[in-house]
């Protein structure tokens, strides 16, 4: 019996592989932050190197997430120019559609700038938060967890040791794909990293929900932010929706 057990154990040993190899990406790709991204759209691009992307672009990671129901953590370092924005799109298709969108928007006149975070799914924006304690004129480093295996997707946003947002109890929908990427406008992106995380057994402090606004169909909410996008649309109830394309 012990010989049978030893034989079975030998069958279970796992071999090591070779170092990472390139994804085979072609000419429409951009190497950035240690991985290949496919460039979907680009406007004015002032700089595009392995360390910095500066301008307006939509990029999707060539390497997919492990599955549609995966849970992932994204670390972003970026800065926004006047009226600039950056959106993390998680668990989307390879066109950055049908995903969970977390957008950071700088707005306001010089000396009175504001940073607002919008959360959206394929139906549009469902939550808005004014980030009073983050200086929108400086470099921003955030960590965003998107637990798409939970229903609805559980989104947690942190800035350093400060918990910015936790969607527990107020999330909406799930992403329907296994890709992720960035859609940014008038922004400088210095780092975008992704790693898989375990499920829902995590511990996060409660965020300051003072400036949270959850969107309910049919209700007219006062939004403490300016709409400064070039294109935005309204749903059938007249509430603002944001086009992240």
């Amino acid at each position, binding site marked *: 019996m012990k010989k049978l057990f030893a034989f079975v154990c030998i069958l279970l040993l796992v071999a090591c*592989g070779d170092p*990472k190899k390139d994804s085979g990406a072609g000419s429409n790709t951009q190497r950035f932050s240690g991985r290949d991204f496919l460039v979907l759209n680009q406007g004015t691009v002032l700089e595009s190197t392995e360390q910095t992307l500066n301008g307006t672009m939509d990029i999707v990671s*060539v390497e997919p997430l*492990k*599955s549609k129901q995966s849970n992932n953590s994204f670390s972003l370092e970026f800065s926004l120019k006047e009226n600039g924005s950056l959106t993390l799109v998680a668990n989307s298709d390879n066109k950055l559609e049908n995903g969970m969108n977390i957008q950071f928007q700088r707005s306001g006149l010089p000396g009175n700038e504001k940073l607002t975070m919008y959360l959206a799914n394929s139906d549009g924006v469902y939550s808005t938060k004014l980030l009073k304690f983050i200086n929108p004129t400086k470099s921003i480093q955030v960590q965003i967890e998107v637990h798409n295996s939970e229903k609805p997707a559980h989104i947690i946003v942190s800035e350093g040791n400060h918990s910015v947002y936790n969607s527990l109890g107020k999330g909406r929908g799930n992403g329907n794909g296994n890709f992720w990427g960035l859609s940014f406008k008038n922004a400088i992106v210095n780092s975008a990293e992704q790693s898989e995380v375990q499920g829902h057994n995590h511990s*996060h402090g409660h965020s300051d929900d003072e400036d949270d606004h959850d969107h309910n169909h049919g209700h007219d909410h006062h939004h403490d932010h300016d709409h400064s996008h070039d294109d935005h649309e309204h749903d059938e109830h007249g509430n603002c929706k944001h086009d992240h394309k």
Partner: protein
Amino acid sequence: MNLFRSAFIAAIALFSTHVSAQQLDGSGLKFSAAADIVGSYKTRNDSTATDKTEVREAEILLTAPIDHRFEGLISFASHREAGESKAELHEAFIKTSNLVPRSNIRFGQFFLGVGRLNRFHRHEWNFITAPKVQRTFFDEEGALDTGLEYTYIMPLPFYMDVTAGVTNGYTYGHSHDEGEKPRQPTHYVRTSVFHPFFWATGAQTGLNYLGRTSSDNTKMNMVGLDFLAKWKEGSMTHFLLQSEIWARRVKAPKVDHEDNFGLYLFPQVGITEEVYFGMLYDFFTNLSLKNALDKKVNNSQQAISPTLTYKASEFSTLRVAYTFGMDKQDSVPTKYDSKVEFQATFIIGAHPAHEF
């Protein structure tokens, strides 16, 4: 303090004073409690281990005959989530085995009768952490829902049963809301048979199917095989072999379907009557994975966990396991995991007899 946490604490206070009384009143009420304490520690910096010890679960279980036809079971459990212990109703169902000949019926909230791990509470498992296929297809502990389940024992010269169940299906897996009415509720079938296997004392194989169509028309279908064989002599299990193999297809509207496949294999040898050594092998892959250039990506998530168990009795377990995991894409390692886990579980009170 929420309703279920209050009920959980009240039940402990109330019934703990009746533990001895229930032995005298003839009602047959059995009260037991179980706890599952787990510590998980990194052995490399990028490990998924939490670097702490927690009471992963605490459960109280009450069972009793209701009358000459029916029995009842209620259990409450407290789980860790978002840094807090949350108490909730775990299972509550009425069951009968003598209403319809050769049939077991249960109605209420319960762990779905599919697979091997999904049919048993986590503190009764032979290893510490759920394999990837269990976590992905059934959630960390198991798929739980409310509905009706019927098991028929076939009139054959050998043991074979067929189980069919249908449950609400408003949610499936880990959910933070009440979900929505599905287009097709959760439904499942399992057929299991006891059979000879290489001089084993007992071996059981189950074939499983589970399906559901959510409110947004996302279809989920799973098929699986579960297997358990034991070589026993007296009270000692000299060797145990346990495995499950599952495949799942999820098809959401307007997007391509996703196929996943996973399995685990757990051989365990008895060193003494109280000490066991096992090796858990865990494998999972996304068969539909493509990169953004639409190129297929061969991928796998694998782990091995040598596990040492000390069982002074069937009511207490001490366990230590080391896990080494590796994720690969196109044969190239993309992620490693390495951690040590410790576990202590115990059951106090009058726990129902354990199944095979």
